């Protein structure tokens, strides 16, 4: 018990817990065939939250260790410029339809989520946290901070959105008769960010590349669009 009292107050323990849990969750996900319902991030969150509740550890203590991982989201967001640059030639060739689809998709995602939640009487903090839900967490956390939502709630909702997108996309593609790999990948990137992109790679390399492209474009566009959309929707 003395060990626990000593180490549970140290950042090192929580850093190790985060990484170990994620590795185990990734292994588990591969074992069950990569289903988006058991996404490594969702599984890690659940396990770590359970562990913290069982040991009576406050989130603040956990975050003292986990913040070293959290910090890397900033440079990782900047790093999205690299895959964007890699696909620049592709973007230039089909700039107009991609831009249109990205903008319409991003506005639909934010506006419809806010409208539905508003109709069901969700609180203002919930509405502001739900708005950036289709954007990669790295950017969504920043947006929620800026808007006055809860960054941690926003990032949780982003992850759940990612799983929902991976589940909904295949049947919708069948109904709408979408067969093109690029369209499949780009649509997954717009609606389900990084989790959609990872899923798009299962359709093929081109789908994955377009997913990454869509994720970057939607993230950047939403960061600039939401601060304008929120007052329009009188929040």
């Amino acid at each position, binding site marked *: 018990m003395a060990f626990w009292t000593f180490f549970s107050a140290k950042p090192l323990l929580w850093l190790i817990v985060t990484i170990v849990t*994620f590795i185990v969750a990734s292994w588990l996900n591969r074992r069950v065939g990569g289903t988006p319902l058991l996404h490594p991030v969702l599984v890690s969150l659940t396990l770590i939250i359970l562990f913290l509740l069982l040991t009576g550890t406050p989130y603040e203590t956990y975050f003292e260790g986990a913040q070293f991982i959290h910090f890397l989201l900033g440079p990782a967001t900047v790093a999205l410029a690299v895959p964007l640059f890699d696909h620049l030639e592709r973007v230039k060739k089909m700039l107009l339809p991609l831009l249109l689809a990205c903008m319409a998709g991003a506005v639909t995602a934010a506006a419809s989520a806010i409208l539905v939640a508003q109709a069901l009487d969700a609180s203002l903090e919930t509405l502001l946290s739900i708005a950036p839900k289709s954007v990669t967490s790295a*950017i969504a956390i920043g947006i929620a901070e800026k808007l006055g939502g809860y960054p941690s709630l926003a990032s949780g909702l982003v992850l759940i959105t990612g799983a929902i997108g991976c589940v909904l996309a295949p049947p919708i593609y069948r109904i709408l008769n979408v067969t093109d790999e690029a369209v499949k990948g780009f649509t997954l990137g717009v609606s389900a960010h990084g989790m959609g992109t990872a899923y798009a790679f299962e359709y093929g390399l081109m789908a994955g590349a377009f997913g990454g492209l869509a994720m970057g474009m939607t993230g950047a566009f939403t960061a600039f669009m939401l601060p304008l959309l929120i007052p329009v929707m009188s929040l």
Partner: protein
Amino acid sequence: MLVGFLILLLFQFAGELIVMALAMPVPGPVVGMVLLLVCLIIKGEVPESLRLPSEALLKHLALLFVPAGVGLMTHFSLLQADWLAILLALIVSTGLTIIVTALILNPSAKKLHQLEKE
């Protein structure tokens, strides 16, 4: 690798500075990303020292979401009150987003494919 990581941090820093100076409602790293993209376009290629840390970070992007996501535990009361609204909002809007995006892109898909082959 180290130089590349420093480049990422410096662009993030520049992004944060611009956001602060102009009081922009956008996260600093997003501005940093746009700045880096512009610089890469001007330079015409990605330096190897930058590619290494960038791809390493993006490869493990999913892990980086975990610490903030665990913060969901501090919102149990909000989640309890709004869970139905949240769940319906996420499902409806994600479905709509997929439909809207696919419908806009699908007609030009043929053209996209032709351009891809060139």
